[in-house]
């Protein structure tokens, strides 16, 4: 019978991580870049919880996931505030167009 094991979760998290990284690299819209970052953080969370559950390890992994969720929220709040401010100044959230500092 088919049963879900550690490997499945690790593959899922690896796919999520790659998708997140791909999104960060290819997307030009700041909001979509932030969504890519969320995917990366959540892929790590899946790893933590899968290892903690299937590896018969201690509770540390699940604890780490809870902290990461909180941190992701804090980071998203600050990031969105910054993007909002960027939009007010530049009238765009395209990360390629916001490039005045480089000569």
């Amino acid at each position: 019978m088919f049963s879900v094991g550690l490997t499945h979760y690790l593959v899922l998290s690896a796919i999520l991580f790659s998708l997140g990284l791909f999104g960060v690299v290819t997307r030009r819209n700041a909001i979509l870049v932030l969504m890519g970052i969320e995917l990366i953080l959540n892929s790590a969370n899946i790893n933590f919880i899968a290892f903690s559950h299937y590896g018969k390890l201690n509770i540390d992994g699940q604890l780490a996931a809870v902290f990461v969720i909180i941190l992701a929220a804090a980071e998203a709040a600050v990031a969105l505030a910054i993007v909002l401010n960027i939009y007010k100044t530049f009238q765009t959230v395209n990360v390629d167009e916001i490039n005045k500092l480089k000569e």
Partner: protein
Amino acid sequence: MLQQIIDSVRIFQPEITLTLVACVVIILDLVFKNRPRMLAITLLIGFFITGYYLIQQMTGMTVSAFGNMFLIDPYSIFFRLLILLTSIFIVVFSLMSAELYNGKRKLGEYYVFITTATLGMFLMTGAGNLLMMYLAIELTSISSYILAGYKKEVPDSNEASLKYIIYGAVSSGMMLYGISIIYGLTGSLDFYNINTAFQTGEVNFLALVAANVLMIVGFGFKISAVPFHFWTPDVYEGAPITITAFLSVASKAAGFAIFMRYFFTAYYDPVTAALSGTLATLSGFDWNIIIAVISVATMTIGNFIALWQTNLKRLLAYSSIAHAGYMLMGVVVLSSEGVAAVLIYFAVYLFMNLGAFFIVMLIADKIGSEDIESYKGLGYKAPFMAVSLSIFLISLTGLPPTAGFIGKLYLFAALINHQWIWLAIIGVLNSVVSLYYYVKVFRNMFLRNIDEEHEQLKFNPIQVIITILLVAPTLILGLYFSPLVNLAQASVNILGLK
């Protein structure tokens, strides 16, 4: 258990003080609106109390608080003192920055975030657990993102904070993924338990390397090492100059502290260490080779791009990248001698780099520009400041009789004693390259526009005193350095041992 928590709280006083100071500043800002100077003075008092508690801990003790979450040893105390000193200087700089007080900006949050960033850096220096390390890095980073964009109406500052948060969040996310793999491999987040797992069990080599490369992305971002340095010039140029100075010294020091602690404790091999007396790594995984390559890339790219810079703030950003490269050389040799050299280098780097940024800030407030071109004839308009800036730049190059020379001397001595001759040669060649762009500033100040009429720039006495406070250590540590060297050497003995 309860007794352990009570004991932990007792040795956690510096961090508790910082937390309380942050709360007090928030409340004061709510009660007395728009009194930024009062907030700064409250903050300074808080920092001095923190310093008092820190100095009380300097008894050479090694204790772990909260079940190995936070380690209090001479190593972390050395770094925490450096960070605290930087924060004190930054608050004083902020009091004098026309840029920040311009347009009646509210500065309550500014001072609160300086405190929380300092707290985060404190926790970074002593973290003994990967989760704690990640939380501390994020506490520092999130505060810094906001500080970098504090001049809300200035487009450059906005751009700086956007770039900072995108690069920062991606690299810390990658680091987190690396942490999760390490957790899967070893079953623990505690540095010492990770070390035990590496010593006793077989660990998948490929997964270990992949995880550590991801970790190095996170550390590399914090210490702005190539190829994770892309944010540095833009953020340093766009952020308020006080924050640029803060990031270039304190944030980098905290990054190095946690970086060295993680690699030296988690991969500590007692058998080889007993044989050769080095902080050896577990066989099969030579992480220091990766660091050596990064170190060479960091100094070379930092120095060579600095050659073409016309904005002094941006030039100092590239120079700070190059300095991270020099300091990485001390990590590569894997010995307590190398770590001591890094500590010495940081202590002298603090004074020379803060000094350079302080004078750039004062000059920019007077003449409204950070371009090297606009520094022409400055040696005649503001002789004292120009001479001081020259001293800092000479020290950054690493020429005697300044403190920068001592920092470099100990680094290269450590390299040569451990047969890393080729790395030492690259380091010396890089110092020669750096001389060129520092001299460019010097030349503009003293050898250009000599014949023109020079209107004297006026500086108030406090600004002069602060400059003297920064120049004096830069010169004195270049001649009388044994106390610093002794302190640094006493601060590394504890690494890797429990």
